[in-house]
């Protein structure tokens, strides 16, 4: 089970879906949801500059296009990985399946790409199985379709 997850997504309904799916699949016991990449960046900046570091989530799911934010999910991943100390399993959760965007995500340090759909549970289950590989950085980038 993943210790704590942070979901950054502008769609409130998806927060409910994700929370229920994670609970049903016993993926995590601690899930925090944010609606904007600016808010998430603020938190990571605070944890990086002031701490406490143990408040940092173990895994971060970021939406690709976050409406109402000053930058997209890929830029948030880049900032978390290259400006705010990394040390989290991080990837994209989006309805998009664009190879060009996926290439950008890889260069920003994303470890996985989960495609949102009605049937999200099987993908999350598969992700949970691969999770240890992401945590110890042995798994390559993977797209869950």
């Amino acid at each position, binding site marked *: 089970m993943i210790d704590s997850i942070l979901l950054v997504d502008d769609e409130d*309904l*998806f927060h*409910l*879906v994700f929370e*229920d*799916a994670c*609970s*049903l699949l*016993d993926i995590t*016991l*601690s899930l925090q949801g944010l609606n904007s990449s600016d808010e998430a960046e603020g938190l990571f900046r605070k944890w990086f500059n002031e701490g406490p570091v143990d408040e940092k989530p173990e895994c971060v799911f970021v939406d690709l296009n976050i409406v109402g934010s000053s930058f997209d999910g890929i830029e948030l991943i880049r900032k978390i990985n290259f400006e705010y100390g990394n040390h989290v399993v991080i990837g994209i959760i989006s309805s998009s399946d664009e190879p060009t965007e996926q290439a950008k995500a890889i260069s920003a340090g994303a470890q996985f790409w989960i495609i949102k759909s*009605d049937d999200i549970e099987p993908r999350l289950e598969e992700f949970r199985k691969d999770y240890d590989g992401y945590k110890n950085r042995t798994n390559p980038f993977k797209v869950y379709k």
Partner: protein
Amino acid sequence: MIKIDKATKQALLDLYKSKKIALEGNILKVIDSDGDEEFDTYVKDSIEKDKENRRKRLDITKQIQNKNKELLEGEVEKERVNLELVAALEEAEESKKEAISAKEQAELAKEEAETAREEAEVARTEAEKSKIEAINAKNLAEGDLELMQKRTQFELIGTIVKVALWVILGVGVITTLVFMIALFAGKDTAVIGSTWSNIIGILLTNSFSIIGTIMGVKYASSDKKE
């Protein structure tokens, strides 16, 4: 894992039995029942109930998500149709403008044609007038020419008549003189006398013939003119 004291366990069990109120959420997954079978059953039942509730909520949320997606797609479609309608409306407006312009041009062309027709009518009238004037001028010229020809003819006839009359008169006078000389001289007048009477007769006859011819010509000319 969290261990709960006996009194709290009992209180939770009593609450569940009396009011059917049980613990919910992920907290259930970290509770250690510590060998208490009744509480363990309570925790497991509560977890199952929580999962059932979450499953229901997940299904409903997904349905709402789908509805939202359909609504968004509908909005996009509506927007697309609206754009098409606006484009069609603009096209129709453009066509209307072109039709109005074409109508105006046609009306202008019609007016120009009408003007040209009127000008042609005026030109035709003027041409008719000119033609009449030309015919009149021609007739006048022909009349003048005829008059001149007649005058010349009359002058010629007059001259002929004068010459003829002079010739007749001369011949008559000479013959008469010759006949008188012969009479007074006492010569034989048998031949000259008959000659003189013949000549006088012929001259008179011819004179009247000439005069008659002249009168006839004059009369015929005046009839033709009328």
